[in-house]
């Protein structure tokens, strides 16, 4: 029944304006404690189109997808599928209404055959018709041009083919909305091409495809339309053909919404003066960042910029030895040093606030106090614990200085809001009085007020002589705080901007174009 409806639509659907919306989301809001993940977001998907969902880290893409697929329930807003209002309570619910999802991490069973994977969890009876299953699978694979045999074990297929099988499974379950979340990130060029031809085939059958990726070139190769989110807000939807790549990047990185006038950009200090505090040469790490050179002077604020996956985080992680360092030389104050483990970096006066606050930063169940003193305590040594009184006074001092909102110093950090957790981690590093502080996305996912506070703090630290490397997905924020920007693409440095050339336009140019 549903199939026929689609065929009718696609038959008349040459003109896009007349193509009906297979999925419409209006005014979607979703909040988590302390974070507003989505605010008044709209999204429309037409049948027979590939629609790219774009945005930086924390823009709300994954939250929107989870609302779409019923993993999260929306706080408010409307979802209509083919004109009918829907309220998905679970992924099964969404699947029953034709919303299929294929995640980056393929959620199939590797040790089963292709046919088994195609039908697992779908049987209504205790008995299985093996032969019918194999034949049906063979037909489906054939019609979609997927190079796999039904009896083949899934793990013997390449990643791309596995992904296609996951897609085929979704199609066979009668899905009309297909969500592909970063399907290409682990595929090589050839495999990407195969995937794209499958996507085109589905498109012609009238399936609406939501495509999430970080690769701009791929967006333009396959997408009809693009929706951009930033900071949980809807920026707009555009025809891919009428939105130049440069403009897309600027929309993704955006003009910050916070009060620009609050912060006056500092005079760039004489960079020529003074020897570098920290220097790296040919540094590379196991996380796959290509060897790079880097230096920072006393009181300088610089930043690594580039799109997500460009290697900006991996670079600073290499400096701090957060990932295994595979090569390169390091000098601190002109003297050769070795950083093989984070503790060595700490002892050289380097602090690192990680991008992944939850996974790398907080010790969730421990108190705010323990979280604040942790780094300094470790530097002081195993046999020299701070007394309760000392720890308490450190915690009190920084709770006041950074205006951390917590019930007490003994509250577990996990019960604080995201912004306050971030401030606790910041306090942890400030307490060590670092000479060089690396802040990777310190403002991500936190409210505007706190963002401004953190930016001001960075500038104040620099005035006091601390060198800071600042990374943010929001380019405005970086332009305001950094006096030098290092631009990355494909895990390598592609440009460096400072002084006159440090304008939004120039930065976007380098990011989008890769050249200067």
């Amino acid at each position, binding site marked *: 029944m549903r199939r026929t409806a689609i065929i009718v639509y696609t038959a008349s659907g040459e003109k896009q304006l007349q193509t009906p919306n297979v999925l419409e989301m209006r005014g979607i809001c979703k909040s988590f404690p302390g974070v507003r993940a989505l605010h008044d977001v709209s999204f429309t998907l037409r049948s027979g189109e590939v629609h790219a969902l774009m945005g930086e880290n924390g823009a709300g893409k994954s939250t929107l997808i989870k609302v779409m697929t019923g993993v999260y329930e929306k706080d408010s807003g409307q979802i209509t599928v083919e004109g009918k209002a829907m309220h998905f309570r679970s992924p099964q619910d969404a699947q029953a209404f034709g919303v299929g999802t294929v995640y980056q991490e393929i959620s199939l069973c590797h040790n089963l055959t292709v046919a088994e994977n195609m039908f697992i969890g779908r049987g209504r009876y205790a008995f299985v018709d093996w032969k019918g299953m194999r034949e049906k699978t063979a037909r489906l694979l054939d019609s979609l041009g997927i190079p796999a045999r039904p009896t083949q074990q899934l793990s013997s297929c390449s990643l791309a083919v596995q992904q296609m099988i996951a897609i085929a499974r979704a199609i066979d379950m009668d899905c009309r909305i297909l969500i592909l979340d970063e399907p290409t990130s682990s595929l090589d060029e050839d495999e990407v091409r195969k995937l794209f031809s499958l996507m085109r085939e589905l498109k012609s059958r009238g399936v609406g495809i939501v495509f999430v990726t970080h690769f701009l070139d791929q967006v333009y190769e396959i997408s009809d339309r693009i929706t951009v989110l930033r900071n949980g807000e809807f920026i707009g939807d555009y025809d891919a053909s009428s939105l130049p790549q440069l403009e897309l990047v600027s929309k993704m990185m955006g003009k910050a919404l916070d009060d620009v006038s609050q912060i006056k950009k500092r005079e760039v200090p004489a960079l020529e003066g003074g020897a570098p505090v920290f220097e790296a040469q040919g540094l590379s790490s196991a996380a796959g960042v290509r060897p790079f050179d880097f230096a920072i002077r006393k009181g300088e604020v610089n930043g690594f910029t580039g799109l997500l996956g460009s290697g900006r985080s991996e670079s600073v992680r290499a400096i701090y030895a957060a990932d295994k360092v595979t090569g390169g030389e390091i000098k601190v104050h002109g003297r050769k040093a070795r950083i093989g483990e984070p503790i060595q970096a*700490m002892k050289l006066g380097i602090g690192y606030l990680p991008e992944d606050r939850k996974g790398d930063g907080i010790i969730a169940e421990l108190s705010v106090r323990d979280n604040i003193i942790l780094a300094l305590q*470790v530097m002081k040594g195993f046999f020299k614990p701070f007394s309760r009184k000392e720890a308490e006074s450190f915690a009190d001092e920084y709770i006041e200085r950074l205006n951390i909102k917590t019930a007490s110093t003994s509250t577990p950090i996990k019960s604080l809001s995201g912004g306050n957790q971030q401030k606790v981690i910041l306090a942890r590093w400030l307490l060590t009085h670092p000479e060089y502080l690396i802040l990777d996305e310190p403002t991500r996912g936190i409210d505007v007020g706190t963002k401004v506070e953190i930016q001001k703090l960075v500038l104040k630290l620099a005035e006091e002589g601390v060198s800071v490397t600042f990374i943010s997905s929001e380019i405005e924020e970086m332009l305001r705080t950094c006096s030098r920007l290092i631009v990355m693409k494909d895990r390598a440095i592609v440009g460096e901007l400072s002084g006159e050339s440090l304008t939004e336009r120039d930065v976007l140019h380098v990011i989008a174009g890769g050249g200067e």
Partner: protein
Amino acid sequence: MARMRSRGFQVFLPLSVLAILILINLIKGADYFSISIINGALYGNIPNILFGASELVILSIGMTLVTSSSGGQDISVGVAGAITSSVFVRLLLSSGGITWAAILAAFLASCAVGIAIGAFNGALVAVFKVQPMVATLILFTAGRSVAFLIDGRLSPILANDLTSQVGSVIPGVPIQTPIILTAVFIALFAVLLRTTNLKLYSQCVGINQKAARLNGINPVRIKFLTYMILGVCSAVAGFIAVTKAGRHDSVNLLKYVEMDAILAVAIGGNPLGGGTFSIAGSIIGAYTIEVLNRTLLRLEVDTETIKAFKAAFIIILMVIASPVVRQFAARGSRWMRDRLGGSAQAGQR
């Protein structure tokens, strides 16, 4: 305030269970607390509990640490105690004469063996990242045979005054020696926690290993260390157990104690998945188990059926302590508070 509350709840449950058990005992006979003096030492229900639980208390302390840092349990502690005590007995019996110095030397040697056992388990868990229960299963399986081989024969006997004094009473001292040893051990452990960052580090490693490393902690080293400390605990427990028994029975010494030690950690309100811990909770948990055993005996439950009763009791306890019931209770207390106003607040705690 928040600290008091979360801490309070953790110890609140085992303490109230302990109170209920004591109440049952008092109903059974009002002479429960009576203490008599035999041969110049104190005897009675309470001293007997403290005496009987000594090994379990010591093991549960080490088990708490290992649970915290590695998020798993060591099921070889009883066997490890059997091995270390076999070394102790062998060395003591082969020394010239049994003196206090010889006992001390043999005890220290058995502690060294305990550390070696801890290092073995710790290496498997921390370096080779084997699941703790699987890693310690190796020794659990093989350990008693090793102890037998060290003994060289069945049940060597420690027939001398000095070791039996360690296992019971030293003349002139009114308290049984294992109770004193346990108290000293707890005190030493308190000093260890106070003078080092062991607690902070092992909690960090247990909660978030990646973050711990980024803050300069070496997770491998900390896990390794906690297993070695547990090894010492096993050695001390083995030492007490063998002097109590007066002979080394490699098959039955400290049998099944590992399960009680894990249980003590759980009753103490410590998450068995690692992270935050309270040693006090585990110690109370260990004594609770001993009281439970003795209460069932006192109620004249058949020795054959005692385990079933014990299990039933523990199931009830664990359900009460489960997050589901706790949440339910919290909701109930909020509801009550709304109904009765602020005056009921104190009563709810």
